[in-house]
């Protein structure tokens, strides 16, 4: 029973990571890649660490695995946020399949402050340019 659980968690985590890596390879722009890779680091490694906890069935190992998972869940979104922000400042291009970009021109490039125009009035920016093509 315990072995099946270990094997299942391990295989699940590995497949999760494979899908994420494939996403990082195939996605057309930085933000899509980020959105694929953050899940790998949090859930893929999380599942494999849980597999280790299930395999050893020991309080010390379980607490270490859970602490690492909590740490990963707390930090990966922060890292992704900082990278995405940095990417926006460097001027990384969004994929040409992007439908709407409501963040465009909202950053003040000198002071690094982010404005908030009323989103209700600025919804349609690039949307009018044929969304399906």
């Amino acid at each position: 029973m315990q072995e099946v659980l270990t094997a299942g968690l391990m295989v699940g985590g590995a497949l999760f990571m494979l899908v994420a890596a494939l996403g990082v390879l195939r996605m057309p722009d930085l933000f899509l890649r980020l959105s694929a890779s953050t899940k790998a680091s949090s859930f893929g490694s999380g599942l494999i660490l849980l597999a280790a906890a299930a395999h050893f069935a020991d309080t010390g190992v379980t607490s270490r695995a859970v602490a690492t998972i909590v740490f990963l869940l707390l930090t990966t979104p922060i890292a992704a946020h900082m990278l995405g922000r940095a990417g926006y400042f460097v001027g990384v291009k969004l994929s040409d399949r992007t439908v709407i970009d409501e963040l465009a021109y909202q950053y003040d490039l000198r002071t690094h402050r982010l404005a908030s125009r009323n989103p209700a009035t600025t919804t349609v920016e690039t949307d009018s340019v044929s969304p399906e093509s």
Partner: protein
Amino acid sequence: MTTFLLNILLAVSWIALTGAFTPTNLVIGFVLGYSVLAMTQRLMAPSGYFTKVPRVISFALFFLWKLARASVRVALTVLSPRLNIRPAVVAVPLDVRSNGAISLLANLITLTPGTLYLDVSADRRVMYIHTIHVDDPDEFRRAIKDGFERRVKEMLE
């Protein structure tokens, strides 16, 4: 908060009485203590503990459900030969104001596959979210506001 401490005290005494210090026993003690406290709550000072705990649990279940659904969808997108994506950066107006609530919301949004939290405006009115597939930005806004934001608000504010 005191009710929570009382609950822990009951869980610890359950462990002491049964004499087996295992994580499973701790959980059992906690659940038993919780039900005892819930039954006797009219005898004590009123506390928000009994509305909060079910809310946190239902939130966790809701998040896991969202997570499972979104993971499968994103996995299918990545594996499909023609990437079926319509990415967008959507500005979502915020109702939550406190630091804790905003950062919890941001973390949850990034952890859900398919959406990525980018930034919050300096005046904390708007959160910018990147999403892999959007059909209607207003629909997306409503989904975030009615789903995650409402529940985070209920839980923390």
